[in-house]
């Protein structure tokens, strides 16, 4: 059922039931803490970020998107040794951006999802870096090749993850 119209195109808004709304981010947080211990490659992934982007572009509600990003980010920070809020701020911005973009664009196909996820992964890193350096005074170094490579890996994984999560969508 069309809810939002952009440039004459119909853009559908989805919702998720409560178990999915809570379970998917919780599972992403758990896997993010569990997998890198066994496979160090997974430390490059940011599953909570991918979930934030997915919920943002699916719900297409900026307030919902930024709150989702905020909560996921704060809980992710709580598992680290760093001050709580760095990921929270970064994912709040990403959640707001993803849901705002979702209102204007149809990001249902794989190519668009890859590009959007790539852009938001880089944006997340930039905000994270700025907050970590500017507010918390962490000694971090920026490396474009590393960040772009990590964003690309995340985008690839995100495409498959989004298609897996699509089945939990419920049309409003």
């Amino acid at each position, binding site marked *: 059922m069309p809810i939002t119209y952009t440039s004459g195109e119909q853009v559908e808004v989805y919702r998720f039931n409560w178990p999915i709304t809570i379970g998917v981010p*919780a599972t992403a*947080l*758990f896997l*993010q*803490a*569990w*997998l*890198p*211990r066994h496979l*160090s490659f*997974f*430390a*490059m992934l940011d599953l909570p970020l991918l979930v934030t982007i997915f919920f943002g572009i699916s719900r297409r509600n*900026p*307030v919902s998107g*930024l*709150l989702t990003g*905020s909560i996921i980010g*704060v*809980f*992710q920070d*709580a*598992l*680290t*040794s*760093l*001050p*709580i*809020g*760095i*990921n*929270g*701020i970064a994912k*709040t*911005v990403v959640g*707001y951006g993803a849901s*705002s973009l979702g209102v204007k664009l149809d990001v249902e196909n794989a190519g668009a999802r890859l590009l959007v996820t790539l852009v938001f992964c880089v944006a997340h890193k930039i905000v*994270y870096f700025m*907050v*970590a350096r500017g*507010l*918390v*005074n*962490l*000694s*971090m*170094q920026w490396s474009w090749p590393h960040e772009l490579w990590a964003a690309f890996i995340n985008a690839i994984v995100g495409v498959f993850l989004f298609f897996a999560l699509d089945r939990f969508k419920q049309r409003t």
Partner: protein
Amino acid sequence: MESVLGRYKNLIVLVCVLFAQVLGLAVQVKRTTDTESSRLIRIWAVDSVTPFEKVLNWMHNSSWNIWHNYFYLRGVRAENRGLKAEIERLRLEQIRLNEDAAQARRLQALFGFKEQFISQTKPAQVIGSSGSEQSRAIYIDKGESDGLKPDMAVITADGIVGKVLKVFHSTSQVLLIDDQSSGVGGILEKSRLQGIVRGTRSGEVVLEHIMSDNPVQPGEVVRTSGGDRIFPKGLPVGTVSQVGNGPDLFLTIRVRPAANLSKLEEVLVVTKLVEQEPTQLESGPVRAADILAQRLPSVPDKPPAADPSKLGAGEAAKPSAPAASKPAKPAGVSAPNTNAANPPKPDDKVPPKPQAQASPARAASPSSPGVGPTATAPSALKPATEKGPAPPPVKVVDPTPSTPKPKPAAPPANAPTPIQDGPQ
């Protein structure tokens, strides 16, 4: 007004949420200690994640153990033979190391050193990680209920791992040594240069604060220096893998951690450290002069004991060899000299001496010109701890002036060498 709020509702909510988080960050950064307000969310997050991690960890270990202990036993016999040979080799090495350790203990007792011993550890299993490249931390399945506290050292048999950062009820967060916010006092095993072992953003471990004019070779072992008061001295940290010139006249020394930090399964948390002076195997004080006298080829009969009150202040500054030939004298300060020149046997016992006595002993070394049995003791022979103006030169009274000088106490090759004031 309502239309403005409605129009910019999303933006206003975004600004409010961001502001709240920035405020929370500012409060945390300003605060030096971790208090309850920020701990609460950590407790929620950790308590919601770690039970699943424990269950998965248990399942993983169980299946792994069943496979390895019951099914996959190929090559066990050959491995057993190899291990037996290894045990034999290690036994021989242990004998040699015991000798060295006994000698080190005696020397430490001699100088009054205190050393730290790991007296109690708690084994723990690694159940999770922080899952972030920016924060290299792991979670273990032991917490406050097991007696863990923040700043306890976490080690493995291979080397150090990190320190306990946050303690929850049944789990703890351990900051690894390759985290960029960690710091461990390190010392290079051969050159004895001290620095700080830190982690980098990319997960490497570096040894900092070593001046570039110091020779450091790849392959050198880095151990804990004990200066951080967390890790006991002497634990392996890693091996120098690369040495390069860094900024500000310091070397950039990359260290390969001794413990495999990316594949940690079980660790030991050092829950109790004991600081004590090393004990000796046998009790009963023995004077250093007596030890020296026993080693001499021949010792003349003990002369009539001189009144100690008649001895001048410079008596203590007598060289060690003549002092040894007169065992009746008070325990001389020449013991360190003797030991420095001729290390005692493992069963030797030397009472600890205050380190301040080492200075006169060094000044009174026979190698010093003009210092003999009847020489005038210079004022420089005063102990370093003595205050006030220097007394006038005192003529040293020899209790056996008419006795023919005994044969040399030791050949020149074994002449006592000046000792150092410190361990370095």
